[in-house]
């Protein structure tokens, strides 16, 4: 099939921009690869941060420790979304009698977004078991996870609330005029639209949660960052941290790309295809 003049033009444009991008990227990479090793301290930096033998010996331990991060993430993430949704709904209630719920929602997000996650983890992870709970209910795994859920649900609640408020008031009006109750309106009209809109920013929070899971290590569990720290002290070498970073990247980069893709798809659906 013969190409139209427009298609030929577009193909040439595409090729040209591809070449330009490839050339400039190659130039930057080349400059970094050639210039950095010329620095006088490069060999020492290389030995401290990029030691292949150290990476090989510590890698299996790091992977094993990372499995704990994954597990904590997997059981925290659903709890965070559910609890965050509950808080967002609290903040959004309109019935005058339920005003205390609104106050609670606002206070909750203010407090838990305002204090450092690490303090929440210390406070809940050491404080609650200190009240006199017996094993296994004083486990740092449980209370560390609770702390993460409390902290992150505050962020997630704000994202979901923004989603709820982005749904046009007319939608509610239409739903109510059809005879749906206030709760039904929220459940069947507002939330489905709101949640769809906030999936990309929520993914963002999940990427960040994936890294903050490591903070649980301050109350005892040996997860990947702590394992790297232990190996670092043992070997007097920072390479294990680089190993941990590689493991994190292997998870967060695909997650981020997925988020980008979701966002783009959403934009395209709402506004048509992107302009070059």
């Amino acid at each position, binding site marked *: 099939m013969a190409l139209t003049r427009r298609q030929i033009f577009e193909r040439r444009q595409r090729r040209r921009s591809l070449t330009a991008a490839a050339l400039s990227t190659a130039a930057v990479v080349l400059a970094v690869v050639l210039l950095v090793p010329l620095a006088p301290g490069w060999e020492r930096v290389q030995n*401290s941060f990029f030691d292949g033998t150290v990476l090989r010996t510590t890698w299996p331990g790091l992977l094993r420790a990372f499995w704990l991060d994954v597990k904590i993430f997997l059981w925290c993430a659903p709890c965070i979304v559910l609890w965050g949704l509950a808080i967002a709904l609290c903040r959004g209630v309109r019935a005058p009698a339920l005003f205390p719920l609104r106050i609670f929602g606002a206070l909750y997000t203010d407090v838990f977004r305002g204090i450092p996650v690490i303090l929440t983890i*210390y406070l809940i992870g050491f404080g609650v078991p200190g009240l006199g709970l017996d094993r296994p209910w004083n486990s740092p795994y449980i209370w560390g996870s609770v702390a993460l859920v409390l902290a992150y649900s505050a962020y997630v609640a704000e994202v979901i609330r923004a989603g709820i408020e982005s749904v046009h008031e007319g939608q509610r009006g239409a739903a109510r005029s059809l005879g749906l109750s206030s709760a039904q309106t929220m459940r069947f009209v507002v939330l489905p639209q709101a949640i769809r809109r906030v999936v990309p920013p929520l993914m963002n929070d999940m990427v960040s949660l994936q890294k903050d899971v490591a903070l649980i290590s301050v*109350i*005892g569990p040996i997860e990947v960052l702590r394992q790297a720290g232990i190996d670092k*002290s043992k*070997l*007097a070498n*920072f390479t294990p941290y680089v190993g941990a970073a590689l493991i994190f990247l292997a998870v967060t980069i695909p997650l981020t790309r997925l988020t980008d893709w979701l966002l783009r798809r959403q934009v395209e659906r709402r506004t048509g295809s992107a302009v070059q």
Partner: protein
Amino acid sequence: MHWMIRLRRYSAVAFAAVSIASVAACASSTDKVASTASSVAGAVKAAADPAACAKSATLTSGKLTIATGTPAFSPWVENDKPESGEGFEAAVAYAIADKLGFAKDKVIWVRTSFEEAIQPGKKSFDFNMQQFSITDDRKKAVDMSSSYYTTNQSLVGYADSKAGSAKAVKDLAGLKLGAQAGTTSLEFINNVIKPSNKPFVYDDNVGAKAALESKQIDGIVVDLPTGFFISAVEIENTKVIGQFAPEAGKADQFGLVLDKGSKLTSCVDGALAKLTADGSLAKLVTTWLADKTGAPVFAK
């Protein structure tokens, strides 16, 4: 900073208690220090005249820059004030400085974390002293002096708990144990005690203490002097339940950390050899550290 205040308030008491306890049996620990220090020397050839050797080997000419922790803990440095020369490591630092030919007022103290001590690039100190155990792995990244103190690992826990009645290493396998990050204690737990529960690791004494108080763990494994300090001062109702007899050649030996290839390493080794030979190192041990025989040894 609540715990710092506690530390300050109690360290005077601890010091008194610790020195009384240590005077009681100074003879036995004297022998131990002397024998171990001489056994590790020899990796780098120790300088015969440390003072002459150190003359042009320091960071700032005419001054000796010594690093300690942020913060430094008792009984190693009392009240987080190394300048006072109080506390075992502070006292040893000044003794080494003296042998290297630096008067007290020529010593500059700086603070570093463990990371700063091993990071590549120019060091901010001549030598760094914060209970660094000497290991071959660490020697690949930094210079380590010969040993200035040899210690066993010990177990600290509540006297009236399940751990409190342990008599042998095998009694400990069912316990939940904790260790401090960056110490060799964790390795010790994994290699020697081999507990059925995964051990926990904390950034510092404070975390381990909180976990012990909330009964998340049954005991903390630490070096013996720190164990004595924790049990006497930091956590009420705890005791050093026992110490572990060293595996063959595996006792924890503390050494100074120096820049890789530092000219000062052999001078410091020379100074340490002299301090060991004339008995002053052993004397500092009895002044500042509790007597090792105060804790029972776990049966194998």
